[in-house]
């Protein structure tokens, strides 16, 4: 299974920073952040899509979240497991997502990079926007 996923997604953006920690694409970052926020018992495709949509105001297609999660799983940044069957899902389980240690460090590296790039710019950016 893992091999299949790896094969399936290996061609898609696997950027690696010089330090060896993989860096994340735009949407990957959003998915990782939502997963981190929701925690290992609440993060799954639907809740992640809703969380991103609510916070960013973007319309999110679940198919994209699904693909991204599969890709992150193939890279070893997140792990998934099946939850309990639930009546509102017609007796089907959720596939719950949790960050792997490597995923946490990738998230940290990317957000740190963004933070350091944004430092001192936020005020100007807001002015520009207004």
């Amino acid at each position: 299974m893992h091999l299949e996923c790896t094969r399936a997604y290996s061609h898609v953006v696997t950027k690696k920073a010089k330090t060896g920690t993989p860096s994340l694409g735009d949407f990957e970052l959003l998915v990782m952040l939502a997963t981190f926020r929701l925690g290992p018992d609440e993060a799954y495709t639907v809740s992640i899509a809703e969380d991103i949509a609510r916070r960013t105001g973007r319309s999110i297609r679940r198919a994209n979240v699904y693909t991204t999660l599969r890709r992150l799983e193939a890279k070893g940044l997140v792990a998934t497991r099946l939850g309990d069957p639930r009546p509102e899902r017609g007796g089907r389980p959720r596939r719950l997502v949790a960050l792997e240690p490597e995923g946490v460090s990738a998230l940290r590296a990317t957000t740190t990079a963004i933070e350091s790039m944004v430092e001192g710019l936020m005020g100007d950016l807001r002015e520009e926007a207004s």
Partner: protein
Amino acid sequence: MSAPRWASALIRRLAPRGRADDVIGDLEEVHRQRIDARGRIAASVLTWFDALDIARVLISERIRVGRGWQAPGPDGRGAPLTRRDRPKRRLAGVSALDAKLGLRMLVRHPGLTLVGGIGMVVAVAIGSGSFALLYSGFFPTIPLDEGDRLVGVQSFDLERNREERRSLRDFHDWRTSVRTIEDLSAFTTVGRNLSVPGAATGAVAMAQMTASGFRVARVAPLLGRTLVDSDDQPGAPPVLVIGHEAWQTRFGGDPDVVGRQVRVGDEISAVIGVMPEGFTFPVSHHYWIPFRTVPTDYERGEGPAINVFGRLAPSVTVEEAQAELTELGRRVSSEFPETHEHLRPEVLPYAYPLSEIRREDLREAATLQLMVSLLLVIVAVNVGVLAYARTAMRSGEITVRTALGASRRRIVAQLFVEAFVLCGGAAAIGLFLGNVGMRWGSEMIALEMIGRPFWWSLGISPATVLYVLVLTALASVIVGVVPALKATGGGGANPALSRATEGLRLGRTWTALIVAQVAFAVGGLPAAVSVGLEQVEEGRTEPTFAAEELVVWRLALDDTRPAGADLATWREESDDRYRALQQEMMRRLRAEPEVTDITSALRYPGTEPVQTIEVDGVPAAERAERRVRSGQVDTGFFDALDVPVLAGRVFDEADVTDEARPVVVNRRFVETILGGANALGQRVRYVEMGPSGGIDEKLPPRWHQISGVVADLHVNDLRPEWVLPTMYHPIAPGRTEGDALIAARVRGGASSDLVERFHAIARTLDPALRLADLSTLAAVERQAQLALRIVGIVTVLVLVSVLLLSAAGIYALMSFAVTRRLKEIGIRTALGASRARILRSVFARAAAQLGVGLTIGIAVALGLNRISGGALLQRAGGFVVPSVAIILLVVGVLASIGPARRGLRVQPMEVLREE
């Protein structure tokens, strides 16, 4: 509430192993949220888009995995291919531009689009509708836990070539000895009056089922419990399990329904459980009562008709179960040869015995489907002919493309895509119409049964879509690729060379196509017209009596045998009770002010069984003409229906027991059987035909004397012979058996109040007495005619589209053939040929082509006529063959006139300069 089945099925098919459930779960969860927020329809549409979006992702994932893309090493490095690096693997270079071109072609050639489109739509609609029915019949998905492990068991009578359902004794044998099938169960559908305190009382259909049936279904009750084995024991307290729908409608969704007492037939039963929504196992049932029969009550081969089913034991195959049953059957048949010598137990997929399908039927059904599919191929060939003319006209464009470097493959692919746009569009509409037709058809079938079986899915199944796709691709090949290969063929890469040889080859092809087209239309249409006409004509049979005023029903008594009572004595008592109740019922109905008359008959008028008779002293005439309907009616029947008496008298009470066995015949009988002679006093008898076609004299002669002649009960203004000669026998009023029809003539037709009053009278007489199949005779007549009319309409639709296509095809071919000769005409004019001579030569060729086609077509029609024993031309061919021939001739001549006139106007100098 759940997400559309289609969407789930799509995801399940595409998702990687172990991933389907949670993705469908997501779909389901969001779908339910949407229903609450936006309503059911909007939710279904959005879920659909969602499913397609996810399917897109899953498909691309599959393709990537399938292509074995380079996996990175354990360090995550490797040689990952990016989207840009991916090799371009397009199918022969087909692009979206081709589809766009195809669409443009549809607009530019509206004639071809319309004619070809209509033909394809009709063919796909019929093909997909019949495929969907066939597929859901033979490969049903039983929507239960491990539904594919459910099997039906039945005895098949090899001698009579039909199933034997009276297998109560066998069922008990199987139950105790069969090991390969678990929880072997039986059910039978019974009608019962259900009376719930505080709610309307009415007759309902119930499944009388062994408790084990619920174990087979593996569905837990919503409230209370299901039947258990102790409920099946004779003498156990009567109980009833109800379905969700019945709970909501009859019991108002009462949460304390479990334990309530209701009256079922002549028993007071306790409701013990409610099944969840959508559960209508074993077929389409909403009520379940225990199946209590003692096997020793009945001899082998006797007793009620039952359906037996069960679940294959773990890891047992159908073949293994069949082997065990076969062995068991062999033992029983050697033990009881007189009843079981010809019986063979069969293990079948669950739905087969319930739909009266056998495995052997599949071959026949598949052949039929193949024939239906051939219709599309024929249509496609016709559209192909049209497209051929168009493609040939585009030879200039093709040459330019070739010169610019397009390969033959590329051009063929482009023409295929163009054809696919036409065929695909038509197929989508056809698929939709076919589905509508199938829904309609299955609702009609469901009306005849007690409801829609729970395994019928009315949506468009993936299998049907696949079938239509394959047919569409095939049609596109015929429509696009074949003409394209022809147009680009020969000469290889040198278009100039290919054009040099084109004239001769295409000339022959044209001639062959025109001849084939005409021959097909002239030869094939009469047969189809004759089938269609027959149905339409039969559908024109109308009653001469006031069918709207006649309310008919069967009087049923749901007698339950008390535990321990002797069967024979109980049956006798029950029959007496039934007759007494029937007489009382008729007496009370007569007292109703709106009811003017009451009568009874064994069958609906016009549906009586057909038998062969012999008239005393009249030499045997044609065998076919001595076939008559044989009806049994009570003595007041003709008065009640206001049927005029034409001669003699109708029945009175004494006739029932009269030694002369008097019969009444209809006018048609006198006209056809007696040749208009005086019927009164003549003697007739039923005869069996012996193997040599003569009368089998072994039977004792039982003569009947004709005592009266009445008017026909039906007329058919188109085909009087559809009304058969009929002979009526008297039965005593109020003394019929349980399956006789009782009819009340109601002034001004039946109102729902009156119908309810009728039901109430029956119930007050006896709670176990009910009026089954209650309807007006007019409704019965309409129902019978509807099916005939539908077949007629469909046939006419097919005929019109075939004729339209043929005419259009011939027009295109003829006009193209003449256009191609423009140069020749110009040169001949330049050389001094007269107009008349040129026109003669153009029409001579057209006439020769049409003439050969007509001759072959007529020969085919005559051949088919001979095969059908002369019925074909007698019925329809007489006018169809000449009219089709004339239509095609006119079309052919019209198609030649335009180009011929254009040819005559061409300046000779222009032509010579071009040369």
